[in-house]
């Protein structure tokens, strides 16, 4: 085969690329082994957070990117794969720790998997800031702070809005039943309803259904049909909120509906009156301020004490105009477009 000179040279060239690649790798390791770490001139900050296919996270990513640009930070965003969330949570955290960044900002969705890894990062000398999820664990894990929303406060805010509309019997739709943060939101709603003399019930959607709009609409519709007293619904993401609107229309029921998370669809549904209110978690701030505080902590040891609340912020007809102008002028900041 290699009697032909050209093919011999082709093979040699091919193998050389592989060998040179490996040699360069060794050189790269030797050369850069001393770089990185807190002594480097450009701070390196790694985010481990949700996938950009989930409409909640692009504003968070955009906020973090903007802050990295404004502050001159070398930024790496590692998205967790929601389809294989346990294994992905472990692999992404391990990859983040292996990079030994100056600070690590993490969304703690699957707490049994991520908490031990947060502790491992801290033991290795990487300061960890918990972002958006992990409200109850961040302190015990040793992270230096938390930014985001608290579940109970969010549920209470939703409850206040529904009570204002005259709702006495509420439904809370939980689209990720294993997530403690979302469960606490429903519990917050229940507490608010009870204090006002009403009640609330939670509908957990099977995780397999939660991303299928048709199934979600059917599940909510079926629940409405069997629970005639429900006057108000609180949903926990934009897609489910839209599906609840559809379900109520199909069931011909007059219900007051509010949801977490802004999106083009929920904003227009708010405009047309199909949705009564939106709860804005302001993920852009989770990203921007999360990056900012990680930077000030890594560089100077300074950060806000305790948990920083970026929500709940209520959006209804009274402040809709401002929201609309921002969505038009700055796409990707408030929600999915």
């Amino acid at each position: 085969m290699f009697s032909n000179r050209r093919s011999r040279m082709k093979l040699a060239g091919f193998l050389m690329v592989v060998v040179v690649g490996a040699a360069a790798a060794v050189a790269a390791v030797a050369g850069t082994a001393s770089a990185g770490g807190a002594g480097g001139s450009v701070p390196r900050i790694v985010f481990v957070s949700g996938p950009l296919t989930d409409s909640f996270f692009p504003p968070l990513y955009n906020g973090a990117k903007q802050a990295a640009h404004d502050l001159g930070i070398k930024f790496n965003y590692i998205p967790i794969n929601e389809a294989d969330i346990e294994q992905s949570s472990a692999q992404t955290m391990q990859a983040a720790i292996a990079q030994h960044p100056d600070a690590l900002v993490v969304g703690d969705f699957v707490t049994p998997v991520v908490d031990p890894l947060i502790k491992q990062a801290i033991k290795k000398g990487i300061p960890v800031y918990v972002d958006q999820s992990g409200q109850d664990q961040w302190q015990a894990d040793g992270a230096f702070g938390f930014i985001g929303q608290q579940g109970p406060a969010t549920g209470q805010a939703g409850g206040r809005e529904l009570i204002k509309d005259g709702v006495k019997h509420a439904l809370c739709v939980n689209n990720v039943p294993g997530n403690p943060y979302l469960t606490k939101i429903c519990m917050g709603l229940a507490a608010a309803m009870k204090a006002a003399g009403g009640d609330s019930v939670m509908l957990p959607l099977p995780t397999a259904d939660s991303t299928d709009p048709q199934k979600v609409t059917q599940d909510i519709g079926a629940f409405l049909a069997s629970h005639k007293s429900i006057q108000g619904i609180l949903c926990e993401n934009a897609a489910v909120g839209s599906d609840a609107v559809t379900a109520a229309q199909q069931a011909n029921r007059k219900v007051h509906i509010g949801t977490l998370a802004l999106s083009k669809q929920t904003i227009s549904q708010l405009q047309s009156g199909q949705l009564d209110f939106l709860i804005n978690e302001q993920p852009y701030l989770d990203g921007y301020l999360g990056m900012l505080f990680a930077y000030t902590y890594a560089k100077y040891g300074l950060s806000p004490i305790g948990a920083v609340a970026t929500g709940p912020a209520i959006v209804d007809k009274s402040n809709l105009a401002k929201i609309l102008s921002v969505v038009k002028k700055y796409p990707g900041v408030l929600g999915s477009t």
Partner: protein
Amino acid sequence: MVSATSEDSKMAVGLSEADWPPETGRRLSVTRRFLLRPETGGFVSAAVVFSFFAVVAGGNGFLSRLGTADWVDGASQLGLVALPLGLLMIAGEFDLSIGSVVGATSIIVAICSGYYSLSPWIGIALSVVFGILVGLANGLITIWTKLPSFIVTLSSLLMISGGALGVSNWLTSASNITAEPVGSAPGVFASSWEGFDVSILWWLGLVGAATYVLQRTSFGNWVYATGGNAETARLAGVPTNRVKVSLFVATSLGAVLAGVVETLTFRDGNVTLGAQYVFTGIAAVVIGGVLLAGGYGSAIGTVFGSITYGIVSIGVFFLGWNADLTELFIGVFLLLAVVANKRLRQMAVGRA
């Protein structure tokens, strides 16, 4: 001149590289013999992607102990599934149900040890029985109906996935169950040393066993013969039905093992665990040199295929490139690896 495709089809009828070239009286050089081995392509893919990430991301932690452990662990879990799947594909059949067998196993183990607080070994034993039954069903239905195994196992994928969700909701009203780590089982399946999981040992041990079976036993010959041409093999006296059913069972048990390892590692049971293996398992097998048509390949090839996928899927986390395009990069790197693999084979067999 012999083209690559006719070379592949010669391999597909069961000739090993020791028989090639037939009767020409020419001895092959060591280089050429090495390049003709079924696993060389997978090795090249793994070497190419490793070199790439070592150069571009080596300084960012890809080559550190923790970074290496990250992709090696991922490769080992994928490898547990890809190994028996690879043997099954050499024999000419597919199994798509592996995606839901992993999830169903995690539900069984988590309910037994978490919800009912029994010893995890009970859940593991039940999962093994479940895996055997699934494998038997897949194999026997494929043989009796003569339908393509792709279709049969696609239906079992959906049935098992829905059934696991139903059982989970019926028994515990939840689709996500935590499993408490008690007893010796977590040590056997989920312990780790310096970041490297014990699943690596399981994986390499099973690869050794599979290689021995393929190369040194008559069962191994039967596997290649069945994949090359099942009808001819049957006429030659090979018990093709027995071979196929055994391999379906082995594939399901591989998925069960992966499910047990992951459930005990994450201390959590979820129906969706391992759903990705439907795609990544077949990808690892094909990158490792097993032909989609069957009849050619090796167990060690699936090792390199799993390693390639592990390196690519974890390596992207070290690049710091635009996060919107993470999945795009994974696809591109895999394609590059497979193209490099193909080019090398063409060079190896292209000039007679």
